[in-house]
Every structure is written in structure tokens, then in C-alpha cells.
């Protein structure tokens, strides 16, 4: 299996980072970045990562099954993650979640028909100070109001990129 030159370079860095007999440490980061490129964790990818890290396929399977952020099904182009843990919950996170479901007509870990949006109700994303928080792919939105969420979802559904939706402030991480 081949990846883009950027990803290959990244993999090499991961593998070089760990001692020769601990290559298995690279399994998680490799899966995380590879799934962005391959859209999901495929059997082929599992085999490849197992081979490169010197572990069995079953050992990679164990990791994939355990971590909820590793996904075997493709997600939407924009993966909208809404936190409903305690801090966000206290200031309207649950309402944001319900609003998003109603607006998009999809639910937890589901994709929109055109494949642009997918939703996920997530556990704490570490943005408690700026609750309620929403994450789209790797970018954060802080102090999200129902109005902002509407605009964000409308914009994404209409084919805009997050940076083109200027009236909702994105925080890059």
C-alpha cells in the first residue's frame, strides 16, 4: 500500500522516533493520519500498519476497536463533533446536539446523503473554558450559540469551506 509522499515522510518520522523493538508505539499515530488520507481504516490499511510496525493484524484490530476516533466507516468531508460532557452540557451543549441532529436529519456517527457532513456526539474535547464547544475536523469553535451552529451547518451544507463561513469564528489548533 502506498501513501502520499507527505504521509510517507510522516510515517518515517514516527518509526524513527521509537526504539527499534518498540515500533508498535507508532500504530496509533499512523492510523490517525492514514485514516484522513484513506477516508477510513480499511483492511488493507490495517495490514499495512501491522507490517510496518511489526505487530499482528489482530493487535492493530484491537487498537482500532478500542479508540472511538479511529473509524472503519468513511466520515463526511466535514466531521462535526459536538461535546455534551459536563461543562458544555451546563451551557447548552445538549441542545446544540439536538439542534444539529434535527437540522441535518442525521444522528450520531451518521453521514449526510451528499457525504459533506457527519455528526458525532463526543466526550470532552478539552475546551471546557470555552464551552459550549464544537469541533469540525481538527478545528474548534468556541462559545457556540444556536445561531452560529445554524450558520455553520448551513454553510457547510451549501458547499462552503469552514474558512469561508466568516461570521462564525474558527479557532485553529
Amino acid at each position, binding site marked *: 500500500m502506498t501513501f502520499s509522499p507527505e504521509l510517507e515522510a510522516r510515517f518515517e518520522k514516527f518509526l524513527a522516533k521509537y526504539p527499534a523493538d518498540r515500533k508498535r508505539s507508532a500504530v496509533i499515530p499512523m492510523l490517525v493520519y492514514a485514516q484522513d488520507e484513506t477516508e477510513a481504516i480499511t483492511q488493507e490499511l490495517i495490514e499495512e500498519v501491522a507490517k510496518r510496525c511489526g505487530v499482528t493484524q*489482530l493487535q492493530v*484490530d*484491537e487498537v482500532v*476497536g*478500542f479508540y472511538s476516533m479511529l473509524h472503519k466507516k468513511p466520515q463526511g468531508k466535514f466531521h462535526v463533533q459536538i461535546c455534551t460532557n459536563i461543562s458544555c452540557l451546563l451551557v447548552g451543549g445538549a441542545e446544540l446536539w439536538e439542534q444539529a441532529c434535527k437540522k441535518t436529519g442525521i444522528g450520531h456517527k451518521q453521514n449526510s446523503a451528499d457525504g459533506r457532513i457527519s455528526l458525532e456526539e463526543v466526550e470532552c474535547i478539552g475546551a471546557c473554558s470555552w464551552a459550549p464547544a464544537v469541533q469540525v475536523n481538527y478545528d474548534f469553535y468556541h462559545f457556540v450559540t444556536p445561531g452560529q451552529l445554524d450558520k455553520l451547518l448551513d454553510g457547510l451544507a451549501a458547499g462552503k469551506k469552514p474558512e469561508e463561513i466568516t461570521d462564525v469564528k474558527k479557532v485553529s489548533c
Partner: protein
Amino acid sequence: MADLVKFTINGQELEAPAGMLLIEAAKQNGIEIPSFCYYEGYSLQAACRMCLVEVERMPKMQVACTLPVSAGMVVRTETDQVNAARKSTLEFLLTNHPLDCPVCDKGGECELQDMVFRYGAGESRYTETKIHVDEQQWSPVVFYDAPRCILCFRCVRACDEGMGVSALGVINRGAMSLIAPNKGDHLECDECGQCIDICPVGALTSGAYRYQTRPWEMEHVGTICTHCSDGCKTTLGVRNDEIVRGNNRDRSGVNGEFLCIKGRYGFDFSEHADRLQSPMIRVNGKLEEVSWSKALETISKKFAEVKAKGGKFGVIGSNQTTNEENYYLQKFARQGLGTNNIDHHRTGDVVTLVDALSGTTGRLAKSVDFYEGKAVLVIGADLAVEHPFLAFQIRANFRHHEAHVYAVTAETVREDLVATRSVRAIRGEELSALEGLREALAAEKDLVIVFGDSIKGDKVRSLVEYGQSLGIPVSYCALVDYSNSRGAIDMGLVPELNPGFHASNVAGATIDELLAANDLAALWVIGSNPLEKAKVAASKAFVVVQDLFLTETAQRADVVLPSASAYEKNGTVTNGCGEVQRLKRASATMGTKTDLEIIGLIAKEMGLAALMGPWLPETVYAEIRKNVKGYDIPLPLVTIGAQQTAPVNGRVGVDSRPDLIRSSHDNLFTSGTLGRYSTVLNSVIEGRQSR
């Protein structure tokens, strides 16, 4: 040993080495702390929360399976708080565990059942629907019932650490966690069944035993596995004279709990539909069933006739019959029939090893040395495949004692995983690679050298010379193939050797010479299949065969006698390390007789009963003790555990005939002729071929 520390459990002042786990320290003082995930000998998991105990000055209850004891520690294991915690843990485990105990194989010997019985988690506050996953068959041997699994991960560790196979894993998380096999929907592994026996509940069950019986309806007979030469003790579960299971949960025998597929499930040959149950005589070219008396009469007449005419006898003994049978057979051949033409299928050069070690004592490795030795050198053998128990010992030694393992083999072997150094060498030329290891080996405290049949004759002498030149204590093990291959040599089923490695004055004919001899008048084969790949040159030879099945050899016979299997007789066998152990009769097959009895009956029919003495295993053993050097071990000692024999400490002085030493190199799923009649072994082979 680490310093002893004083601590208190339940008001009792106790002592244990500092750093010992609390659960172990309690156990060695007779206090049980229950646990599911903790398992002696494997890595710590701390997953089940069953072993919670109160420890003074610690804010919360502690898990005894990961807490080392320290001086002054005050522990309470049976307080109301502890009992309540255990009850809650059980209530939690039962959230999804089905209460199908009445049909579960484990019912009656289930650790979860026992714990619930003890702590009384009879009521549950959980009303949620139990998560159900359908049962899966992973291999002919292994079945998995996910809902019963309590996720203790014993199976995963036993497979990974114990077997070095890593065929099991855990997928998903939380309540959805499942044990998963390495090939998606099926297993590709040693099929040893360790995972099944170690399972505290009925999540993993075996194809052989499932739905066969309730555990309390079995009788348990501890005997020795009849397959390879490692001499594992297997405790057979017998119901209505039928063997339904093999395991060794009581950890008796040299092998502790270890068994491979052969010891655990390979007993099924004894129930095979092709078992011979009646004597047969060749009439008009065809074998016809006759009575025992008719068959014995025919044999004794013919034998007496050949003897009277001074005709040539040939006797081929077995690698699987007992020491008593072997001794009795050679005595009958040598003294009764007056021939030294007695041999067996030779599989390892023990003779040269004993000869090369003359003048030394304690240089033959015991099974336990593979676990306790500081270093092990494996030469020319794929131990994990051919001698799974010795390989298991080595892995455990590496895990527990950081033993140094060296492997000199032609192919990659599983020992490489734990090896300090692995060297590849062409088969037969392994010794040339040893010089490169000299420095490393000489620096070891002691060493066990184990070698396969590529090292024979003068190579054994060179190897012993090399070993003795290292300047450290070295012990040796010459691998042989089957359960009593070693006993066959010790008991003198060799033309050039009388029992006890005594050179015989009159050289008899070897197995190859017998088969090739045109003037052979009578050939008597006991529990062996020499004609699988050869022919008897003497077309007129009168052939008598004692066997379990109509083998290629039995098909050539003039008289076939149905014999009892190793699981159907009493006696002793000697494993590859020279350890004598006791066989105990577990079941019986109608119509068969033990080889000992058959030999005795033939002798009686020939009027030689007085010479031979009674065909009782104990009587013959007493004779062995008197006449075979090294075997002077009281039977009660053999009964309670393996006892290593100490063979002659002097030159053997015969040519070991390396050309006749040919190991069959049976793998995990083959076992000579016997393996062909084991349904479970064959189903694994067929399963693999069909994929």
C-alpha cells in the same frame, strides 16, 4: 531469596519475601483471596476487581493481585466492606453473563459460579437487556460464547506469553469488548486448548468436550500422554468407560497445566471406529476373525516350530508400549525364543550420549532444567512444533527467570522470539556454528543442551566434548520421538543392547536387516508400523502383529492381535529426559488385551510361563528394578511424580548405528501411525488444507 517481611492478614502474623504479591503471600499462608484475572505465571492484568482487600492506612480498598507485601502491612480480606465489594463486582459481572449454567459445560466447576455461590450475589439491580452475541466456532477445537466472557484476559495472556502464539486479542471496548481470533473469523494457532482450560467461565469451550457430560459425572484418571516423548501428565475425564476429556488442571506431573492438542484432545484414537477388537488369522489370503485361544495356539505352534528348526526370528518392539511390556518382550525374545534380533524404530541417539557422558553424573537434563536452567541451547530441532512442552518450559524460563536462550537451527523457530542469539545452520551441520557461540555460552552459569536427530553418532561425542570444554555445568537431552522411545532403548529393544545399556554379547539383526533378510522365518511386531514404507523381503515369513489398528504392517500379518492402547493399561513409561512416570488405565476397549498380557499368554501357550513370570505390571516392574541399572526406583515414588533414571555411568561400548536413527519429525498435528486415527488432529489438518 529476598528478605522476609512481617505483615498481618486477618490478625494473623505472617512472613513472606518482600515484594511478593499480596495475593500470593496470602495463598502460601493458606488464605484465599479470590480473583479471576490474576493467574500465576502470567503478567498482571488487574481487570476483575475480585481481589479487593482492606489495607490499613490506605484510603481505599486495594487489589491484592498487584500490591506487593511490605513490612508492617495490616490486611483484612474478609470484612463486611470487602464482602460487599466482591458481591458488587459479581453483580456487575452478571449484568451480561447469561445464567445458562444448566447447559453450560463449565457448570459445576465454574469459578464465577463458585464465587456467586460464596458471596451470594443472588439478586441484581440491573434490568437492562443482556447483550447477546452468537456463539462462534473458531477451529475444530475452540468454540467461543461471547456473552459468558467476563473479560479476565487469561486466554489472551496464556496464548501470547505461555504459547508465544498471540492468536487471541480483545477488540472493541467496555461492555462491547470481545475476545477475537487472529484470522478474523477463525483461529490459526497450536490448537493447544490452554485458553479453554484457563477460562474461569464457559466462554471458551472445546469441540471435544462440549455438551458431552456434567463434570461431576466423570472419574478422573491421571496418566501419561501417549504421543510425544515429553511425557506430559494428562488427567483423563472418563464417563461410562469412555474418555471424554483430557486436561491437567491439578498441575501434577512434570508439565504442570501445560498440554498440547495431543495431550488434551488426542485421546480420541482410542474410540476410533477402526479399532481392532478381535484376533484375526490369515485364511486363504484373507484375515478372518478368530477366538483368542485359536490365535494364541497358532502363534505358539509356529513359534515353537521355528525355534525347534533354528529358524530366524525377528522382533520389532514399540515406541509407545510400557517399560514393563518392553522388558517382558525382550526377555521373551532373548530367553524364550533365543534370539537377539530385537529392535525398534530408533529416533534419537541416546546411546552415544550416555556413552559420551560416561564417568560423569547428573549430566542428563530433566524436564525442570528447561525451566530452571540459566541458559538453554537448542540444536537442530523445532521445539515448539515437535516438543511443545519443552518449548513451553523454555518460554516460561525466559519470562520468569530471564534465561538466555540460544537456537541453532536450519529454519526460523519460535524460540527465536525469546532467544539471546539465533543462528541458522544447515541441518546436520549445526555443530560448525557452535564456535561462534563459545564465548557467550562459556559466560553462562549453567547450560542445558537439547538436540534433535541431526546430531547423532560422532556428532554427539563432538557436542559433548564442546559442552565439557565450556567450563560450566552442562546437561544434555537427546530428543526422541514418542512417549516411550527412551524406555525402548533403556529396556533393550535394541539388538546390540540388553536392558540398562549393557552391550549384548551376540549381535542381533537390526530392524532394516530383519526386513531385508530373505531367510526370516517369523516376524513379531508389537505396536509398530515398520511396513508403512518398507516391505518384508522374506515372502514366507510368518508375521504376527499386535496393534490397535489394521496398519500397513498388520495387513501383511498372518496373525493380528488387538492390543490395548496406552490409556487402557497400567505400567510405566520413560520420557525423553529419562523420567519414569506411571500410566494408569482410564478406559477399556472390548476384545483387546494389553501387550503385556498377550506376550504372557503366548509364553504360557509355549510352556514358558515359569521362565517369564506373571504378566502383572507391578511384578515385571519389580524385576526391572532388580535388573535394569538406573531403574531401582520404588513404584510409590514413580506414582507421585516423575523420577529420573540414572543410566550406567560407564562406557556403553556399542555402535549406536546412527544410520538407523530417523526421527519422524512429527509436528503438532501428526503423531506417527497413531495420529492418523485421531479425528481431532486430522480435522485440524483438513481445516487448514481446505483454506
